[in-house]
């Protein structure tokens, strides 16, 4: 009790003159925020209001927190309540590389033997969520070198293949005077890169504070980037060197810095790609037309296709013209009027095709369509030239044969097997070859046998034909029987004349044939001469009588015998003579 009172009184004794000199000494330690992302900067400010002379400051224990910048001391005077006072601040820029809770220890301000202690501060660093790329890049760069840093940023975080992007290099400097010593090249694989002309680089009029530090800021470089393929594309950090604080006596130190690298998600153009889409992205117009509308055959004429607008114009290839037969063309001439500015690629690209009509007439080139992708909406738009018409006239002075087209060899691109045979495959049942089977040999033998048979028959017939009298004799009876048949008919019909004529012819003809005589030679004498040998002349007698009878009865209505009897006798006689052996 006693001791405590003594201490208090002692303290009052010591502090009283101080308090009377500056009634309030205030000490405080503050951070600008108590929760921060890993890697981002937290500013710790220790403020001493009205520090008396001889004040000493014991800085706080920072533990595993890293000092990005500081300590920076500042002292400024102020007037409060009619009295002159001062404020002393000491600033640290701190950061943590790992997430977690950090404690800033108490700071002690000692004046003489007395001291004032601040409260400890608890800081929480969390794993960075969606901190803006440029922001964290800036803070990381600030960690690397707080005096001079350069941040590379893109104006988009994702893009379509062919879409234009602007990369901006922003320089943050705490040096008063600096000049560029070296600018590294941008390594951007998969990008088409074009520098944007910026002109004079100037620092922004007002300085910018980053984590409590004041910087002069300038955009030192802009680049137009056009991704050429899809996927995660990376832009590597760019090396820069600056010569700082040159003076009359020295060239100044060279400070080398490095920008941050940037990753970009590049997407394929949306599906439903039109067939005539060849990679143009942006906003485009198309103007087209022939220079003249009438041309002589074999004279060149210019066809112009002009794409204008804001797009990746330099990457537009010449569209393939669907020329009708009879036109010759060469690779088009490309005329660019393109400017690359901070807003991207602007201007126009013109394709000048030289066409040579080889035939006279009205020619129409079918409408050429061209599609481009509008990256803002992700939709395709199609431009069309409309049908292009031109009239070619015959040149009366042209020499003949000058209109022959140039010829090219056909190129073989690949060599695949030929296609299957289709339609009738000519299928047949499998069998041994015909020549090994019996039908072949039978077929071969049959005509030969037939020929041999035919020749035999023919020879026999020839021999018979060679013997005419024998032929007659052989046929005599058959001929006579034919007449006798007529006679029988006449007999039935009771026709006298026809009957006797037939019987007469039968007898006459039979005798003539039998003995190889003419019909006129048949008379009684010859009958006796040839037939007397038979039947001791009776047959000859009967034959002659019957012949006479029939000849007589043929012309006169005199009949000595009944007709039936004449007939029977004639049949009997012819039968008897015919069956007798030849005399």
């Amino acid at each position: 009790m006693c001791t405590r009172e003594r201490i208090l009184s002692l303290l009052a004794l010591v502090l009283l003159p101080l308090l009377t000199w500056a009634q309030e000494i205030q000490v405080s330690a503050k951070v600008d925020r108590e929760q921060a992302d890993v890697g981002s900067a937290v500013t710790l400010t220790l403020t001493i209001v009205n520090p008396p002379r001889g004040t000493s400051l014991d800085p706080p224990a920072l533990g595993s927190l890293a000092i990005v910048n500081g300590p920076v001391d500042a002292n400024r005077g102020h007037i409060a309540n009619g009295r002159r006072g001062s404020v002393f601040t000491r600033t640290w820029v701190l950061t943590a590389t790992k997430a977690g809770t950090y404690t800033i220890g108490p700071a002690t301000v000692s004046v003489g033997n007395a001291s004032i202690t601040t409260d400890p501060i608890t800081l929480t660093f969390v794993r960075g969520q969606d901190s803006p790329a440029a922001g964290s890049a800036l803070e990381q760069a600030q960690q690397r070198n707080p005096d001079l840093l350069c941040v590379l940023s893109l104006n988009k975080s994702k893009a379509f293949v062919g879409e234009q992007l602007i990369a901006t290099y922003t320089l943050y400097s705490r040096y008063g005077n600096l000049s560029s010593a070296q600018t590294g090249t941008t390594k951007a694989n998969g990008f088409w890169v074009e520098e944007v002309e910026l002109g004079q680089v100037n620092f922004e009029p007002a300085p910018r504070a980053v984590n409590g530090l004041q910087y002069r800021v300038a955009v030192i470089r802009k680049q137009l980037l056009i991704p050429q393929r899809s996927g995660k594309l990376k832009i590597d950090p760019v090396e820069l060197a600056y010569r700082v604080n040159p003076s009359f006596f020295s060239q100044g130190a060279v400070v080398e810095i490095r920008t941050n690298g940037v990753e970009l998600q590049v997407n394929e153009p949306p599906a439903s790609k039109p067939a005539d889409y060849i990679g143009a992205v942006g906003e485009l117009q198309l103007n087209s037309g022939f220079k003249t509308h009438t041309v002589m055959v074999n004279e060149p004429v210019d066809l112009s296709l002009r794409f204008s607008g804001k797009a990746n114009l330099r990457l537009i290839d010449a569209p393939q013209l669907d020329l009708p037969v009879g036109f010759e063309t060469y690779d088009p001439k490309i005329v660019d009027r393109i400017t690359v500015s901070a807003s991207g690629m602007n201007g126009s690209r013109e394709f000048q095709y030289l066409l040579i009509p080889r035939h006279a007439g009205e020619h129409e080139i079918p409408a050429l369509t061209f599609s481009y992708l509008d990256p803002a909406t992700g939709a395709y738009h199609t431009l069309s030239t409309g049908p292009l018409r031109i009239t070619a006239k015959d040149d009366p002075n042209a020499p003949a044969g000058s209109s022959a087209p140039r010829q090219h060899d056909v190129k073989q691109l690949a060599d695949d097997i030929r296609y299957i045979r289709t339609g009738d495959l000519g299928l047949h049942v499998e069998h041994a070859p015909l020549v090994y089977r019996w039908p072949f040999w039978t077929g071969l033998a049959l005509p030969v046998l037939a020929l041999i048979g035919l020749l035999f028959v023919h020879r026999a017939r020839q021999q018979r034909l060679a013997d005419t009298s024998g032929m007659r004799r052989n046929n005599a009876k058959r001929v006579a029987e034919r007449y006798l048949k007529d006679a029988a008919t006449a007999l039935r019909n009771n026709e006298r004349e026809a009957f006797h004529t037939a019987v007469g012819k039968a007898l006459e003809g039979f005798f003539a044939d039998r003995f190889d005589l003419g019909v006129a030679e048949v008379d009684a004498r010859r009958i006796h001469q040839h037939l007397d040998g038979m039947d001791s002349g009776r047959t000859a007698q009967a034959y002659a009588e019957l012949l006479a009878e029939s000849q007589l009865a043929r012309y006169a209505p005199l009949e000595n015998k009944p007709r039936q009897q004449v007939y029977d006798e004639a049949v009997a006689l012819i039968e008897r003579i015919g069956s007798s052996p030849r005399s």
Partner: protein
Amino acid sequence: MKNALLLPLLCVFGLQAKAATDARVAAAEAAYAAGTYQEALDLYNAVALDLNSAALQYNIGNCHSKLNAVPQAILHYERALRLTPGAEDIQANLDRMRALTVDRMTSVPTFTLGTTWDRWKAGADMDQWARRALWAMLMSCALGAATVLVRTATSRRVLIGFALTGLTITGACTLLAFSRASSIQDGSQAIIMSTNLDVLSEPRAGTTKQFVLHAGTKITVLRSQGDWYEVRIANGAVGWVPVESLEVI
């Protein structure tokens, strides 16, 4: 009598079978056109069970080559070529497939005259020479028969001359028919089906390995003993291989 009853029955069955075959061929064509080569191959193989033709073998070969079965493709192209030697499309595809085989066989280049003769000799059908012989014989016999109709000795002599010419043609056609038949029934050519085939010195497993052949190579079978073939390759080397490693053309 029995045959007379069977004949119309056979005709009906024949027509039905033909319709089924036509449907299969059409389905196979559609499958091939659609790119389902395995399906096309199965259909063509079903047709090939009891029918045959160069075009069918060629189409089967095409299916195999589309399925990357090089030795099978070569085998069927060779079979197709045997039925119509010198067919341009078959030869072209066969050459393409041969280019994919491992063994390089330098065969004697054939003269254009030789292939033209082969093509002419083969014609469209293996029985054409036999039929021509039959027709020539019929014609010469008809000419011989015609001699009995003519009167003058001169015209008879001319006819006999023609008939004898016809007889000569018959003989020639018969010889060509024999030559063609023997080339079709030639069982001495074979294609190697095994990917790697050791050719041994004796018809017994484990004997000295003479050389190694690969799938798709064409060889000549000299003789067989048990389950082994003695084979000769284009450069004249000879050795023994198991029966199952080959497919006779």
